[in-house]
């Protein structure tokens, strides 16, 4: 009997796709995001389809609001068996106009926010000796990229944190899955001006993640497979060449 899965950043994109995929697989879904109207609409959509769904408004960067949201969702849908830390933000920056506060916000949401989601869910999972943590990182974790270096830093940090945590929790009944998607068609990437090879639909990615959750979770999941291969191979290219090519690439289509 599939249990209760909580998703942060559930209102749009990969989060919303995960909610739909989990609901159709029979899970109860707890939705967390900042925008109430979107959560309400999604939850009632899922409920109409026969699924159990509930929502709570919270900002993952705010621990108190996350704790309150988590408690209200557990009260409504029962103990959280799977926590999916999905909320994330992206911004492109240039060195000459670099605003550290933009970078700090990316780190607070993508790194601290994901760890906060895990921290509120972990005590219950450890007490039951059963549970899964899933974090939606990014293939950008595999290499620092021009323009989005704060994003790369955040994803590199969050992948590292959860992979390390996976070692520590391996004998405690909690599986940790680190998902590193390449390009996914969502609102977040809609304004990217450069070509995005191998772009996945959010629903495709969600189905792959849900299949992993159904098998008990665990491991690093990079999609599509050639992303980790390509970024690994990129290290064989001399950095001074790769850097210039990457900078040119990520500025394609940009108005100067």
């Amino acid at each position: 009997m599939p249990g209760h899965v909580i998703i942060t950043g559930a209102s749009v994109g990969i989060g919303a796709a995960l909610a739909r995929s989990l609901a159709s697989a029979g899970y109860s879904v707890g939705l967390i995001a900042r925008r109430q109207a979107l959560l309400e609409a999604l939850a009632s959509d899922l409920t109409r389809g026969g699924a159990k769904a509930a929502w709570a408004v919270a900002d993952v960067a705010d621990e108190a609001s996350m704790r309150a949201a988590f408690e209200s969702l557990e009260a409504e849908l029962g103990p959280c068996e799977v926590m999916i830390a999905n909320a994330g933000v992206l911004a492109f920056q240039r060195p000459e106009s670099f605003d550290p506060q933009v970078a700090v916000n990316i780190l607070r949401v993508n790194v601290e926010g994901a760890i906060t989601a895990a921290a509120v869910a972990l005590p219950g999972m450890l007490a039951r000796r059963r549970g899964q943590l899933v974090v939606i990182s990014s293939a950008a974790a595999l290499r620092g990229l021009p323009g989005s270096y704060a994003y790369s830093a955040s994803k590199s940090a969050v992948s590292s944190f959860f992979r390390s945590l996976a070692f520590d929790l391996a004998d405690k009944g909690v599986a940790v899955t680190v998902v590193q998607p390449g390009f996914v068609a969502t609102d977040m990437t809609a304004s990217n001006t450069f070509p995005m090879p191998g772009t996945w639909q959010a629903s495709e990615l969600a189905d792959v993640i849900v299949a992993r959750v159904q098998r008990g979770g665990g491991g690093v999941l990079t999609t599509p497979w050639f992303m980790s291969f390509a970024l690994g191979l990129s290290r064989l290219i001399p950095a001074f060449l790769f850097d210039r090519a990457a900078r040119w690439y990520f500025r394609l289509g940009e108005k100067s």
Partner: protein
Amino acid sequence: MGQHALIVGASSGIGAALAREMAFEGYDVGLIARRTDRLAEVAERVRARGGVAAYRAADVNDPEQLQAAITALEEVLGPVEVLIANAGIGENTDAANLDLAHVRRVLRTNLEGVVLAIGAVLPAMTRRGHGRIAAVSSIAGMRPIPQIAAYGASKAGVSAFLEGLRADLRGTGVTVTDLCPGYVRTDMLKVEGALPPFTMEADDTARRMVRALLAGRDSLVFPWPLALASRLAALLPDALLGPVLRRLAPKPPPALPG
């Protein structure tokens, strides 16, 4: 008068050694850390050897304090030509009792602190078209290992940030150097009994770091045996390495590299 080399996290350990080393290379050193008394000692030692040093106390977690301190030092020593972002703390992570206050302390000091320090000098350096940026990351950021989730994450984040920033700055005259040491004998290295493998002295570490960053190198990962081991371990999947790492990991947890 020499050019301004700013060291953030300069009151002890590698930072204090970096200050002496940069002064020896002829730079006027600006020193930032939280503890004024320790900064005064470091500055005094630089001056005793004929160097120029100025210092301001600031917390790297506080962007306004940090910016004010950098502005004040630039008024005395001129625009920052070399930045070394070194401030960092080492704490082990207890996964079974995940403490968010600990996670925030480590991430905000080690990762946000580096981002804020770089952010404070980056636009001006880019406009001038020359300068050197370096940050002290760690070999621990190259491959996730047990028991140091937050520390490892902070250092992995620093290295990725520098790598992306370097790609944007390549060819502009501003260089970005990622300094990844292994174990260094400082206050951060809390060990009783035998030292961890290939432990280095702070002075020697600082000398090698200064040489690398003044040469504008992309990165310095050292000592080489640990660098090689980390690079190889990074290629192996977690599932394969997990059982080995868990058996190697001592209880209590290991001292922190870098």
